[in-house]
């Protein structure tokens, strides 16, 4: 996993500090994380932003399905399931 870690200026960060970001597909159950940025500007990823995964949004990883996919997360007071691969354009910052 470590080679996937990238250093990037997170959108929300006013101090321009660098934060370690990982792609969404590397999340683990129980993780709290924040959306840092979108790697590509694909229209398909826009759907995720419309569902509330905008930059700066915090979420918690609730569950991974028995076969490894999809992943259930909790954000903005509701539960959303996503596929690892399809949300891969999403870079996140792990909070805890």
């Amino acid at each position, binding site marked *: 996993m470590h080679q996937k870690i990238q250093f990037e200026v997170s959108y929300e960060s006013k101090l321009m500090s660098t934060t370690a970001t990982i792609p969404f597909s590397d999340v683990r159950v129980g993780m709290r994380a924040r959306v840092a940025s979108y790697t590509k500007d694909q*229209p*398909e*990823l*826009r*759907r*995720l*932003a*419309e*569902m*509330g995964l*905008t*930059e*700066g*949004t915090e979420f918690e990883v*609730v*569950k991974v*399905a*028995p*076969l*490894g*996919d*999809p992943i*259930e997360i909790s954000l*903005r*007071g*509701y*539960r*959303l*399931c*996503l*596929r690892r691969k*399809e*949300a891969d354009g999403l870079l996140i910052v792990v909070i805890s």
Partner: protein
Amino acid sequence: MPKLESPTGAQIARVALVGNPNAGKTTVFNALTGSFQKVGNYPGVTVEKVEGAFTQGGKRYHLIDVPGLYSLDVVSEDEQVARDVLAGTGTQESKPDLLICVMDGNNLERNLFLFSQLAELGLPIVCAMTMTDVAKDKGVEIDDAHLSRLLGVPVIRIVGHKGEGVAQLKDAVSHALLERPTASAIRTKLLSDLRDSFARAGYDYSTEQLESEVAHRPEKLLSDAEPFPEIQDLLTRIRSNQIEPRDRYKWAESITQEVVRVSEAHRIKRRSDALDRIVTHRVFGLAIFVAVMYVMFQSIYTLAAPIMDWIEGGFAALSTWVGPMVESNEILASFLTDGLITGVGSVVVFLPQILILFFFISVLEGSGYLARAAFLMDRSLGWCGLNGRAFIPLLSSFACAIPGIMAARVMPDQRSRLATILVAPLMSCSARLPVYLLLIGAFIEPRFGPAWAGFTLFAMHFMGLIVAIPVVLILNRRVIKGKRLPFVLEMPPYQWPKWKDVALTLLNRAKVFLKIAGTIILFMSMVVWALLYFPRSDADEVAYRSAYASLSEDVKQSISEENFILERQTENSYLGRFGKFIEPVFVPAGFDWRISTGILAAFPAREVVVPTLGIIFTVGSDADEESESLRSQLVSAKWPDGRPLMTPWTAIGLMAFFALCAQCMATLATVRRETGSWKWPLFMFTYMTALAYVAAVAIHQLSRLF
């Protein structure tokens, strides 16, 4: 804006119900309209159109249930349809006069995101806030009066299935049509931000001024903003209406913070989570899933069987009752009994299965289990381009493709839904079973024993599933157009299903299905009956009789006169002639005109193939799949040059043909109904028939190599 006039001369207002999927639109719709609904399709697309009406204060309101949508920026087919309805484009209908924005009170941020887009349409809006009962249980308090002030439109709490807030909502709608409250959302906020920025820069504009100048003469504003990049940026965003989701969610967060109070109780983990630890567990979850599916399909078979027998019995009784009344006219009698009653009966008989399946689906959906099942199954179906929700439609199709195709409406993504519909009939339905049993009993079991017989039966059922995989892959790459969206699945909290909603769903499904049976299928049955019946003349019958009389006694022993005449009449019918004409096409598959005619006659409904073969092989039309005489006729049948007509391999080819071919007009009519056009049933018919033909030819030709 043109308005419809009702017969009494009063104007009819058109009201559209808009909101996120699962926000409770249908529940509000049902509460407002009762059961006065019209279920149809938007032209040319798979999206269902539901309309209804209600009366308030002597005025009639026409209500449209717009497909659920997350965003007005068009990405999916549903969203395109919703947008067309709201903008009055794409169909012949005008814009609605008012929107009811249905908002889930538990999920205010995401629902406000959509509201912020709706607000920009410039139509009067009334907000209906649902799920407030659930919110209360969770200790979430919503200040709806304050929300209404912030949004600039009425906000009415409604719990549709309990009837709470329905009168208030109707009242608010009728007032809103007169007062036309305009919603204030993100655009209003951006305008006031712009006003403040200009004020800081020393320019004094009111928001109204800004609004009109942005729209009509932005030159002055642009030159004023020249030295201030921040103001320029705001101005560009307002002018281009390019407001990013990020901005909309920021606005939604600020509103939510002001109106929602969460007590400590909410921070405690949801009750649903405890249940989910078991229901989506990697062992128990799968076990529960298998158990639920088992109960569901077991019920479809066992509960439906007696009712189906009863329906079949009813139609048979109808035939025997009607037959003697029109005995004097042989054509009319045959038309009514063999054509009309049998044709419609053969379709109506599926109604119990459909209702039982939909009973389970609406209970599973209403309780929240369907989302869990999709969560569990997504991986196993996702790799070939479907998703977890395709599971129930495909599994149901093993019983009958018709309820399976109808069940595909649980899939919110139209692309996957279409792919699922198009492969559903490849699953081997119960109507194929008689063909398998007949041929396995004649060619496989006597020669290779019961183990191979069982294996063949299994292989026939498995073949459709295997063939479906490349078909889906190709469909998704080449045939079904549109962008592939990421799969998003909302996990709602568990709830008790609402029995009234379940009943309404069943009522609507039954209506829709019987309408198909009563129109398209009725018509097709008559056509096929005519092709099998005509031409028929007394002179011919006399000729057949004398031909029979001149047969040797041996032959007469094995064939009754009645069956002999029936065979000759069928052979001489338009369909029989066509079977002979088309024989060269089927020769590469090892089929002669008799089997070709059987195949042709089975296109309307594959289950008629066994009685048709019975007629053609002179054992009479009451032959069934267990009929020993039909089996021995099939085994001993010869080509004119004396070779045996069928080998075990031709039998396998014929079974494969039936396994893959689209021989069911009720299915095609259902696909037409569900996809809104003839394009998809035609496509389905073509690709399945081609597959079936190629498979039958390949099996026959390969068998000759060995």
